[in-house]
């Protein structure tokens, strides 16, 4: 009897000790979590293009260009005392490009200072997420610096999920305050009609409203409406325009532009291995451009860790009313450009991506959770073509 009593006491003691240990473990789950790295993305791209309508030389001449970009994107997360999730995103990007047309700011030069440049663009974003209420508040700052251009940006956003958590409304406001350095074509620098010194301001205000809705367990949609207002110097000072009489002028465009893009995006899980991602955008602005963009991408999961994603994008636009080709404008025109990016054209972009997420990490490195490679070929009806290959490494 005594042994049974002692054994019983010992068992009770053990159980109590275990229960306390469990309680201690549980209690740690409710303590504030320290700031931790959620993921790091490294994204590198190589882009090349060729064409024969360079705007720097008035709509004729080589548009050959290469660009190498590298972006590091760091996401940090911290949970607050009240269960609020704090997300911090730090992104730093560096592009280096060489451009045959930029080299022609000085028509005599073969390899001038403007033949290449480096762009540096850091950004910092903070998102406060109340998972219980389904609300998200975000603020962010960004900048972009290159030799002849400086941009500072700020954004604020608010999102609210519906009560059933199947819909989400988001409102966002972006502001960009930019400065354009007045680098004029060399032969126009003494022309009294040419802006050839100092800086000019270009400001952009963009409002965006979107609503996403889960339709069923396989299908969801997103509607987005933006309104973008730009004011200031919207031309570029080194763009030439040749008139019918052979005279050369600096590009001249209105000092305001209102853009309205409307978009719908959807993703549908077809069966167990195929996803259909679709996107359509209608765009209109007060410079006379109307455009349609349609994009489809079909990720196919060949295994739980490997998928391929062929994609196709079609785009068309009407010309801005200020556009005309080389030696087509005349002195009666108030505004003029020979920038083929503002001409009437259509384009096709086709390519494929691969996505690898092995369970033990890429090359057995557990922290290296994902590798993605994407290639695309772009053809524009104005005889411009380009290729881009990108790689994304995700560390977790």
């Amino acid at each position, binding site marked *: 009897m005594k042994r049974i009593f002692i054994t019983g006491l010992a068992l009770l003691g053990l159980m109590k000790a275990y229960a306390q240990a469990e309680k201690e473990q549980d209690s740690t789950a409710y303590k504030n979590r320290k700031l931790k790295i959620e993921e790091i993305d490294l*994204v590198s791209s190589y882009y090349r293009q060729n064409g024969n309508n360079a705007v720097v030389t008035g709509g004729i001449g080589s548009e050959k260009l290469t660009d190498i970009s590298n972006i590091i994107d760091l996401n940090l997360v911290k949970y607050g005392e009240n269960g609020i999730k704090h997300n911090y995103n730090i992104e730093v990007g560096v592009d280096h490009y060489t451009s045959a047309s930029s080299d022609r700011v000085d028509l005599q030069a073969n390899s001038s200072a403007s033949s290449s*440049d480096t762009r540096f663009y850091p950004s910092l974003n903070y998102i406060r997420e109340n998972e219980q209420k389904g609300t998200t508040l975000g603020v962010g700052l*960004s900048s972009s610096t290159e030799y002849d251009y400086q941009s500072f940006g700020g954004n604020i956003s608010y999102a609210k999920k519906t009560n059933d958590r199947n819909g989400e409304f988001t409102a966002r406001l972006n502001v960009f305050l930019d400065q354009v350095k007045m680098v004029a074509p060399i032969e126009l620098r003494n022309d009294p009609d040419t802006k050839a010194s100092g800086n000019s301001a270009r400001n952009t205000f963009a409002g965006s409203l979107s609503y996403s809705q*889960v*339709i069923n367990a396989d299908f969801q949609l997103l509607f987005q409406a933006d309104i*973008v207002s730009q004011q200031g110097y919207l031309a570029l000072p080194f763009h030439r325009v040749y008139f019918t009489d052979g005279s050369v002028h600096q590009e001249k465009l209105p000092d305001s532009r209102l853009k309205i893009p409307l978009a719908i995006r*959807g993703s549908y899980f077809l069966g167990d291995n195929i996803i259909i991602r679709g996107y359509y955008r209608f765009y209109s602005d007060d410079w006379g*451009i109307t455009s349609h963009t349609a994009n489809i991408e079909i990720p196919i999961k060949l295994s739980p860790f490997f998928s391929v994603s062929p994609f196709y994008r079609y785009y068309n*636009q009407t010309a801005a009313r200020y556009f005309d080709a080389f030696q087509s404008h005349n002195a009666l025109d108030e505004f003029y450009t020979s920038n083929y990016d503002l001409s009437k054209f259509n384009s096709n972009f086709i390519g494929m991506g691969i996505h690898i997420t092995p369970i033990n990490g890429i090359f057995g490195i557990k922290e290296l959770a994902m590798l993605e490679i994407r290639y695309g070929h772009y053809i524009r009806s104005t005889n411009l073509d380009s290729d881009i290959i*990108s790689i994304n490494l995700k560390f977790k």
Partner: protein
Amino acid sequence: MKKSVLIIALCCVMASCVQVKEYQKNKINDAEMALANRKIEKTELNFQSYREGASGANAGKSGGGCGCN
């Protein structure tokens, strides 16, 4: 006529919404199902906004930066 058909089709799709519980969202939560561009698309979206007159409503650039190249 086209707009009316599109609006009716959208209304039908929205009317067919069913309430999906969190535990039923394994497909909706798949990374490939995200209603956003991927990070790997950032540079190509930038170049599309440089080379085309339209921009915005795609989480890409709608201002800021030169696009001089």
